[in-house]
């Protein structure tokens, strides 16, 4: 009798020990998104070289009266990156006027004199966390040929601003 009871206990123990448990592990991560207001970019001022003389380069610095300006509004205290699509020529009809040596400056107020300098490029310039208003100033140099055809030459300067 006693032997039977002991064997029964052993069998029960063996069954519980012998169950192949499907080993499971769980882990968690967090999904996060931050909703921000849209960025707006407005034309604050065109880059205007005025009259240029054939064979004589002309530079407009960001502090000059003809400097270009973009006016940006964004969410305050956010990081953004500026990138540019820059023309290599201003054009009239089939005539090209080379433009290069781009200069830039950004500021949280409309003051090019105290702006932080940078070089506009397609590669992008990352700004530190700043307020909701951003002013971006642009300058460059045109290089008319000695036989440059007279006329009004134009091109587009495009700036893209994205949150980081």
């Amino acid at each position: 009798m006693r032997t039977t009871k002991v064997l029964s206990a052993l069998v029960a123990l063996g069954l519980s020990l012998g169950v192949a448990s499907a080993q499971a592990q769980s882990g968690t991560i967090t999904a996060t998104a931050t909703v921000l207001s849209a960025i707006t970019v407005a034309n604050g001022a065109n880059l205007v070289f005025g009259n240029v003389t054939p064979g004589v380069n002309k530079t407009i610095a960001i502090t000059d009266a003809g400097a270009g300006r973009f006016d940006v509004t964004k969410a305050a205290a956010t990081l953004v990156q500026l990138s540019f699509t820059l023309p290599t020529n201003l054009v009239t009809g089939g005539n090209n006027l080379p433009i290069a040596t781009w200069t830039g400056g950004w500021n949280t107020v409309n003051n090019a004199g105290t702006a932080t300098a940078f070089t506009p490029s397609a590669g992008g310039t990352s700004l530190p966390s700043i307020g909701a208003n951003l002013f971006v100033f642009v300058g460059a140099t045109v290089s008319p040929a000695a036989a440059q055809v007279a006329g009004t030459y134009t091109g587009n300067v495009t700036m893209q601003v994205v949150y980081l």
Partner: protein
Amino acid sequence: MRPLPLLTALALLVAAQPAAAQVILSRVRDLNFGAVIRGIATHVDPSDPVKSGAFQLTTANGSKVRVQFTLPSLLNGPAGATMPISFNASDAIASGVAPPSQPTSFDPGVAQTFTVVTTPTLIFIGGTVTPAAGQALGTYTNTITLTITLL
């Protein structure tokens, strides 16, 4: 004298059980959509090296595992605001870190069974958030759970 055979039988019974294979699952990084704009759906690809979520699974090569996500349908934001989050059929990738493992895209909404070829294995997840045009500004979060079952 009589108890000795009982103890011996018990010891033999315990020793006969196979050693359980080990499964280690750890968090590598969160799924981070970053800045999203009202009214514009934003997708993070599971292959995004920065934004996609990632887990690391370590278990014996040749192990058969079931991979199952528990996914939220909403992210929770300020003052009770919520924002929809969704996952498409290719928003997860499983990939061993060494050859001959090949990245395998799969639906994170469906439990999958894999045979581990190399260990550790990385499991990545992306997704899409859809902020409304009038979505409340702020940070939204929720939890993604991954359960690995050794088969």
